[in-house]
């Protein structure tokens, strides 16, 4: 097992634990959630195959689900996120393509690139998450408020984590 895999495994546990023990309790105005584990899924290397990516997404989502008694809700949203991710990465390819072995982070591809990438994927993830949780499109406006507010909250925390911690661990 190489160093990168080990770091990914350790960050997995820290993200999930911080999510269920701390961020699940921090809710803004009853509507804004911070699902910081999405930040973990966003920063996987660009070359990662879509099938392993979806399996990782499923494992992360189901771990959060078990602790919050919402079995399947986070898992379905995370699998979709990981499925859509390569398509979005394709769309957002910068001039000259991506360098080999790169992880999408603000430190590697710049703040504005990362923001576009992160906000789109977080929005998709949260949209699916809250509508699956609501079990349909009744309560539409209430749920869409939750989606938008939570997207902003999650995004801010993800960016913050990137600038505070990730830079020191790996800068590639």
């Amino acid at each position, binding site marked *: 097992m190489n160093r990168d895999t080990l770091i990914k495994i350790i960050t997995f546990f820290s993200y999930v634990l911080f999510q269920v023990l701390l961020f699940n309790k921090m809710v803004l105005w009853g*509507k804004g959630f911070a699902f910081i584990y999405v930040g973990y899924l966003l920063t996987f290397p660009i070359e990662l195959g879509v099938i392993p990516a*979806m399996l990782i997404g499923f494992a992360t989502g189901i771990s959060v689900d078990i602790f919050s*008694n919402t*079995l*399947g*809700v986070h898992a379905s949203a995370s699998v979709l996120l990981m*499925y859509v991710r390569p398509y979005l990465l394709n769309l957002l390819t910068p001039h000259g393509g991506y360098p080999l072995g790169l992880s999408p982070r603000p430190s590697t591809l710049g703040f504005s690139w990362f923001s576009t990438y992160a906000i789109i994927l977080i929005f998709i993830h949260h949209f699916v998450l809250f509508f699956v*949780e609501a079990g349909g499109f009744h309560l539409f406006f209430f749920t869409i408020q939750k989606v938008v507010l939570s997207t902003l909250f999650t995004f801010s925390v993800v960016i913050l984590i990137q600038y505070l911690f990730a830079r020191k661990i790996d800068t590639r």
Partner: protein
Amino acid sequence: MRSFFLFLYKYRAFLVFILLEFFALFLVVQNSNYNRATFFNSSNTVVGSILEVSSNVRDFINLASTNKQLSEENARLREKLNVLNDELKKPGDVDTLSRFSFINAHIVNNSIFLLNNAITINAGKENGVMPEMGVIGGGGIVGKVKRVGKKYSTVVSFLDVDVKVSAQVRGKINLCTVQWDGKSHQFAKVLYVPRHYNLAIGDTVVTSGYNAIYPEGITIGTISKINLPQDATFYDAEVKLINDFTSLSEVEVIVNKDLPQLDSLTLTEKNE
């Protein structure tokens, strides 16, 4: 045949995606069904004990407010005790008092901002908790036990949009329904109150006792908002819940000793 396998290989990513999504959604549907038991939820011992460590830290910080809550509840109960003592002197049905016993439990995990909220408590099979038992605390109703593990159980919170509680308005209406609308953890809707009743702000809403889960007279809250449109058959009313679900920490699980008998009665009724 070969082209079929080529097809599978070509679309393998999409097929895995569909497979995983179906599995996840299957779990969602299965989890929202009350009667199924699944292994992976917070009544699992490992998950429960991790959550308990974190709840111990939070409880330490909240000690002051918990103390205040408990002493307030004590005062209310003492008041009630006086009333009950007087009633006991009259001949009446003492049976109802001895029908229920209580199991103390501590809240380990609690959500309030989802649409189907759940509570994890640190009492399980070992303590005599069984599925379908009612849970009260903080002077009002809390929820209903859903799944029971060895040491922990999960409770369907009253704050669940699929839960309806049979209720009455003290001194006025014998039967109505209270249901949470998923918006604020402080308020719920009072349904099916016909317009000829004289509902007023400040009226107390309590459980009706027309089910085997909650005893009669457990407080739900007080009426906080009334709206009666010209052409409506029923009131559009809101109740402010007595329980503050954000700071709830000690609860009691209600053991109804007549439950097996009641259940078999309803079963035979259904069969007939």
